[in-house]
């Protein structure tokens, strides 16, 4: 599959749009997952993918073929997703001040679900979605990139233009919010 991608990349680099179409087809599902997770919205994710593929095509000559095309493309897609959110004024200018864990829980426990609400998986899904929507875009992006995409803190920091410490805090806050949704307070 990866060798196959490399072959199509080489062809697409010569301006072969049919080869590029193959690359679009091969990466659509994975890119969609990432973009939806980052934006939390399927329509915005689709716009982000559109821009990501277009930018990838335009900068294909810059792609170093020693790297994996899908990794390179995902990086472009995350940037495109963040750009779409910025355009819609959904990205915060800066991360909120770091709160300590105790403060965080004391503030948000009121909205935390009780054990009865976790009775079924549909309710859990709704709780997770509610908490995900309460995350800032940076928290969600940092978490998605670390947890789902397996990127290193260093790479995520570079991608999100954060320092490592801010990047860690974004992930911590994301996990805390998810714990609130998924773990009934004891």
């Amino acid at each position, binding site marked *: 599959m990866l060798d196959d991608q490399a072959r199509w990349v080489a062809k697409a680099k010569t*301006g072969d*749009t049919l080869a*590029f*179409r193959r690359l*679009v*087809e091969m990466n*659509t*599902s994975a890119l*969609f*997952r990432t973009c*939806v*997770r980052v934006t939390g919205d*399927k329509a915005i*994710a*689709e716009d982000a*993918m*559109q821009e990501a*593929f*277009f930018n990838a*095509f*335009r900068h294909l000559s810059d792609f170093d073929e020693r790297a994996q095309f899908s990794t390179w493309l995902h990086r472009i897609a995350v940037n495109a997703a963040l750009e779409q959110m910025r355009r819609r004024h959904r990205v915060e200018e800066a991360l909120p001040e770091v709160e300590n*864990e105790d403060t965080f829980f004391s503030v948000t426990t009121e909205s935390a679900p009780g054990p009865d609400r976790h009775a079924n998986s549909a309710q*859990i*899904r709704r709780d*997770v979605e509610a908490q995900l929507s309460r995350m800032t875009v940076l928290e969600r992006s940092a978490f998605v990139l*670390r*947890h789902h995409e397996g990127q*290193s*803190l260093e790479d995520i920091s570079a991608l999100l233009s954060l320092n*490592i410490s801010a990047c*860690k805090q974004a*992930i*911590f806050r994301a*996990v805390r919010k*998810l*714990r609130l949704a*998924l*773990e009934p307070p004891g």
Partner: protein
Amino acid sequence: MNPIDPITDDELILFRYRDGLDAARLADIERELSNSPALRERNAAIERTLARVDAQPVPQADADLGARLWKRLEPRLAQAGVAARRASWSDRLHSLIESMRPQRLAWSAAFALVAAVGIGFYAGRQSAPPPDATANADAMALRVLDAYVAAHLRATEGVLVTASNSGSGALLDGNRELAASLVESNRLYALAAARAGNARLADFLRQLEPVLMSLANQSDGGAVQSSEGLRDYLHATDLLFQVRATEARLDRSGDRRT
């Protein structure tokens, strides 16, 4: 054994990803996890949360997404491709013009000769004959010039069309020679048009010169790619259309003067 700093939940999150902690702290946490049931329980809570996140339905693209994306992408990619090729053609023309600068000095001598002949012709004509004869001679000179330039543009049109449409090496070889032969006459016609006061035609012919020079110097390698680039360039600049329009205009004005 030295007592270790208390382990926070945040550190357990980093431990889960084996990222953002140094090796010594990772070892501390690992050791503490095997010794402390309370820490194991805190760690298990984090693991449960993340496992539940993993158990969430994965966002699924609908079946039409790929086709929908491509439908919107294709025209943009085509446009981007044309722009890139157009840039490469413009670059080639520009570099060619730059590389020809020293030769321009040599050609300027030829231009000076043409100018001297032209000035002598006009000066001689203006000294003696009556006004009617001068007017007739002017009209005749312009008609001759128009006819020659129209024929030149027909040949140029043929060269452009062949270069942009033909993949045949033999045909392109002949075309290169023809383009080379047209370069010099193009320059002379441009000069003659300027002398005759037809600045528009002179400018247009000057605009053709780098294209003809580029075709005359077209390499064998990448002929197909060059043809594609030329097609895009011609399409983007409407050059072929302008050649044909100028040619037709000259034919018409020649007819009117007859």
